[in-house]
């Protein structure tokens, strides 16, 4: 059982780190499009690892299934939302940041 606890702890810790990194990237990256990539890190690696870590600690199958549903749902909706946002911004003429530009 201790092995499972350690594995769960590692997954949770790594997920929390990815979540924090994405948050920092959201502030640090220079423009809207690059920030979407940072937000993507929290939504995929962060969310996935945290939910997997929780799955190792479940006491009943219902809880596990709910966690799996949340994971699958986030994995389906987050790229869709990101694509729709990026597409709308592009249509609106939000310029792409190039190397050497001012940050916006």
């Amino acid at each position, binding site marked *: 059982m201790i092995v499972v606890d350690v594995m769960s702890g590692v997954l949770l810790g790594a997920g929390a780190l*990815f979540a924090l*990194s*994405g948050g*920092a*990237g959201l502030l640090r990256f220079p423009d809207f499009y690059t920030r979407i990539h940072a937000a*993507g890190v929290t939504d995929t690696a962060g969310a996935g690892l945290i939910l997997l870590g929780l799955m190792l600690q479940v006491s009943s199958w219902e809880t596990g299934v709910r966690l799996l549903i949340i994971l699958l749902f986030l994995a389906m909706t987050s*790229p*869709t939302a990101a694509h729709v946002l*990026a*597409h709308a911004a592009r249509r609106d003429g939000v310029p792409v940041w190039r190397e050497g530009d001012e940050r916006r």
Partner: protein
Amino acid sequence: MSAASGRSTRGETIRATLRTALFLAVFWLVLSGHFEPLPLVLGALSVALVCWLDWWAGLKQFHNVTVPFLLRLPRYLLWLSWQVLRSAVAVTRQVWSPRPALRPVVEPTAAGDLPELAQVIYANSITLTPGTLSLDVDDDRILVHSLVFGDVDDLHDGAMRSKVRRTGASS
């Protein structure tokens, strides 16, 4: 199955509706966990309502979701998770590096040889992978925004594209 814009045959529509109903019923039972008459009746009503909405709005949600495709999907998702983790590490490095070496590029990548559902999966996978983002999808290519040039170059190599094709997702 049916062509992208053509009308489905009656049999296809019925089979797809049955698949939708089955999926929704299982979803309801798992989430509610109650098997008394009232929750079951409410569940049946909800399933019927959603199936009707599905047909009324002309959505084709489950028309192309076949059993062989579902069986091949987990393997792809496992591979995709690995890719996502790898590129998440790469983006995280950029975030914490004192001077991030970002060289964003916007470039189209080929996707014309993929059937419709496979194109959707491909575009979503591109966005799901940190470092690449699909901006626009048209008939034969996907416009990709990439944090560094190498990421979009990897897409051109076509490893992900051929893996998506192998899931057997049809039009």
